[in-house]
């Protein structure tokens, strides 16, 4: 017989008519599990919000969509808003979404094949390392980690390889090491790869991974909505942090990955509390390694609710 795997998403819980419809852009990655789960849990509905998650690919699409007013919020890496602020696009960070783990196993890592001989950050000198997107938190923290470990970060050649393809490229010998999150991190390590370093953890512990982004225009025109979203989000994130199993279940259904794989994913710390200090440090790193010309105006950018 026929199946219909899309049936459940097609019948969105429409609830009562008073809900405000909002569209939120978010990558289809494991971290979004918290959002999916919280929506299913009805947390946003409780705050009068009907959230549609739009899978925008990276900040490059999400921020134009924000500016166009097609979506109201976006969940994205902090470097996106930095760049946007430097260009005076009128983007604000309203709250944190997820942060890397200050200790233990972090959410992402630089990994290499066992026979590569790369075991510590300074071994990366002169090697080809992949990141998913150049000139962002990934390569910055890796450079910093290498520098801290006594290596010369300028000799590393960074290339862009999507997270999913990284393992194949590693195996093919096209790259020496790869910066990947879970599930790829766990998979490579499980298959005998070396975990070289958790770059976030060793450079800026607890660095915000993802933040909630909106526009200044929306804050001016509809502060209640931003308020409602922030409150709902804060509640949702606290709830998600406490209910990791629900988050994993949401990952399994939305990303269609096997349950076993989802169980092995290292989840970040879900919290709405912004670590402004860490962001400051990240911006400083950006300036230090010449990725951005100057520091963004964090006072203007960060409108923590």
């Amino acid at each position, binding site marked *: 017989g026929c199946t219909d795997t899309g049936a459940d998403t097609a019948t969105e819980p429409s609830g009562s008519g008073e809900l405000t419809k909002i569209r939120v852009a978010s990558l289809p990655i494991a971290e979004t599990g918290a959002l999916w789960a919280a929506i299913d849990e009805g947390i946003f509905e409780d705050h009068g919000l009907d959230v549609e998650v739009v899978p925008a690919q*990276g900040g*490059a699409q999400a921020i*134009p969509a924000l500016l166009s007013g097609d979506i109201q919020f976006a969940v994205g890496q902090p470097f996106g808003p930095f760049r*946007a602020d430097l*260009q005076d696009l009128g983007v604000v960070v309203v709250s944190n979404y997820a942060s890397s783990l200050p200790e233990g196993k972090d959410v992402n890592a630089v990994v290499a094949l066992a026979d590569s001989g790369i075991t510590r950050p300074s071994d990366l000198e002169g090697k080809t390392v992949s990141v998913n997107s150049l*000139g962002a938190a990934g390569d910055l923290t890796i450079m910093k980690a290498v520098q801290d470990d006594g290596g010369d970060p300028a000799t590393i050649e960074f290339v862009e390889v*999507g997270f999913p393809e990284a393992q*194949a*490229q590693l195996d*093919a010998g096209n790259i020496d090491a790869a910066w990947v999150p879970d599930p790829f991190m766990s998979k490579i390590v499980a298959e005998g790869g070396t975990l070289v370093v958790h770059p976030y953890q060793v450079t800026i512990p607890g660095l915000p991974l993802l933040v909630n982004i909106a526009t200044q225009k929306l804050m001016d025109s509809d502060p209640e909505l931003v308020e409602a979203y922030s409150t709902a989000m804060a509640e949702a994130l606290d709830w998600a942090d406490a209910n990791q199993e629900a988050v994993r279940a949401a990952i399994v259904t939305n990303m269609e990955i096997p349950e076993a794989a989802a169980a092995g994913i290292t989840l970040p710390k879900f919290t709405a509390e912004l670590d402004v200090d860490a962001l400051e440090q990240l911006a400083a790193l950006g300036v230090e390694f010449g990725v951005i010309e100057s520091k963004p105006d964090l006072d203007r950018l960060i409108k923590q609710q």
Partner: protein
Amino acid sequence: MTLYTSTVVVPRTRSRAWKRVGESMLFALGLPFLLLVIWGISSSIAPAQFFPSPLRIAQAFVNTWVGPAFVTDVLPSLARLGLGIVLSVLVGIVAGTVIGLVRWLRELLEPLLEFFRAIPPPVLIPVFTLLMGLTDSMKIFVIVFGAVWPVLLNTIEGVRSTDSVMKETAQSFSLTRAERLRFLVLPAASPRIMAGVRQTFSVALILMVISEMFVSSSGLGYKITYFQRNYLIAEMWSGIVLLGLIGVFLALIFSVIEKRVLRWYHGIKEVERA
């Protein structure tokens, strides 16, 4: 029994030549200039973040592309582009001629070619990199993979539509296979082939950019994506402008080639337009 045709050669005067150059310059630059002015006016009336003024773009252009970036990012890209174009055209014409002439081959390959033609290159780039590594040849392969289709298809169709009387002429004089190719099939298909080549030039440029948008760390295409992702809007536009300029430059080269290859063809059409 002789017929006599007088040939009066009227020498082109210098001033006429200058007038022609001036006129074609006017034609070449008139509309772009007009559009530029409109853009400039509209961007000064309603300044928009994503549509900066031409001046701002020009500034960004100089800052971004004039200098070392030209050597490190643009030149390698252009070299790959050049190779990609040459290969695409060669492969397209050779394969297209064979496929167009040999019917069973056409029937064997057509579904396969159509299949591959429809696959988005971004999906295949990872596979290509696995097979060929993160090398220049991989990027060139991506360019060829995407840019070969216009020449290929046009060549196949051009070869197939060779005039029947011309074909019979070649047959009746027992022209050899090579002669038939050289003197009948290729020239007869050349208007179609050139239509394809013209498309290939710009498609190759697009694929050069795409090949650098994934699995890359330098090049014109990479830069454009980088600017795009970092909201360096004017810089991004300057990259697009550079692409357009390269396109115009390629079109210039192309029209020189076309003038030579299709001299007879333009001759027919032009004379009758007098």
